[in-house]
């Protein structure tokens, strides 16, 4: 069982869902307030979605200077796993822990709808239970979701397998190269614009996002080997 710290900023609104998704996957998940300076022995850090600090100035621009972010950056630099979902992805980009930035959707409108993404990189702590090329249905809910990065960095991300998810069928926000999620050079810091925590159980209309959280347990399993198998279309820990 891994210890998963879900960071709560003023304006986070997917923190409870992220905590529940991590617990459903078998993790020992708990909240850490943005003013705290320790992660309480976390194996994995999750920066949840929402509108931290009201998205003032730029999405994530002020949250990245929250006291807890010093500990998050240290955790990341030591190779610890960090997942940023939506606003969390924006914060990781603002903090320089991931390349690029997120700008206003190309069609301006705030989008809250299903999106389809293809898994491009299963070699991360959050995708190791997916197959390369799997297409997942995961909802999006963002106004500033257009991932932009300069051409040279985009080419480097592609060449080094650091695009983790890519939109298929439709690119909802106009992101560079249809990118929906990326990772850092160490593959331990991952950002994703869609919300896997909103799609982790049949009651939510599907569970394509569940293995993001199950992957954390599988990847870090040392004492408790976790075997995840699909049975009758449901992913179970056995």
């Amino acid at each position, binding site marked *: 069982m891994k210890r998963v710290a879900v960071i709560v900023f003023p304006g986070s609104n997917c923190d409870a869902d992220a905590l529940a998704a991590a617990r459903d996957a078998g993790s020992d998940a708990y909240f850490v307030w943005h003013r705290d300076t320790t992660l309480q022995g976390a194996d994995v850090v999750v920066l949840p979605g929402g509108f931290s600090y009201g998205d003032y*100035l730029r999405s994530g621009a002020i949250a990245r200077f929250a006291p807890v972010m010093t500990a998050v950056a240290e955790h990341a630099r030591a190779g610890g796993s960090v997942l940023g979902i939506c606003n969390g992805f924006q914060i990781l980009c603002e903090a320089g822990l991931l390349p690029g*930035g997120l700008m206003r*959707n190309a*069609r*301006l409108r705030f989008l809250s709808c299903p999106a389809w993404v293809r898994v491009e990189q299963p070699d991360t702590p959050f995708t190791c239970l997916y197959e390369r090329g799997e297409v997942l249905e995961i909802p999006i809910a963002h106004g500033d979701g*257009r991932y*932009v990065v300069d051409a040279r960095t985009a080419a480097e991300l592609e060449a080094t397998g650091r695009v983790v998810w890519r939109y298929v069928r439709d690119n909802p926000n106009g992101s560079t190269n249809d990118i929906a999620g990326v990772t850092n050079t160490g593959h331990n810091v991952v950002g994703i614009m869609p919300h896997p925590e909103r799609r982790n159980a049949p009651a939510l209309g599907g569970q394509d996002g569940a293995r993001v959280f199950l992957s954390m347990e599988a990847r870090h399993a040392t004492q408790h080997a976790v075997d995840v198998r699909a049975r009758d279309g449901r992913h179970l820990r056995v």
Partner: protein
Amino acid sequence: MSAFRVEVRVMPRAALLDPQGQAVEHALHALGFGEVAQVRMGKHLVLEVKAATRDEALARARAMCDRLLANPVTEDYDVVVGGGAAR
């Protein structure tokens, strides 16, 4: 020490799509302002900065831009320091 009025202009990088600017441009065209093109939209911040000299106020304001006010990946900025009023 003087208090300098510092104006910071933050604009989306020229190479990047600016959908807000485009929407404003379309609205202007719809109103009959057909002569308008290349509308881009950014932010304008006005600060009061205490400093010994204009140059110091400029340097501090630039440091603020680099750390917080602008995102170097997506935005460019420029800084104008107005007159200092002696305190």
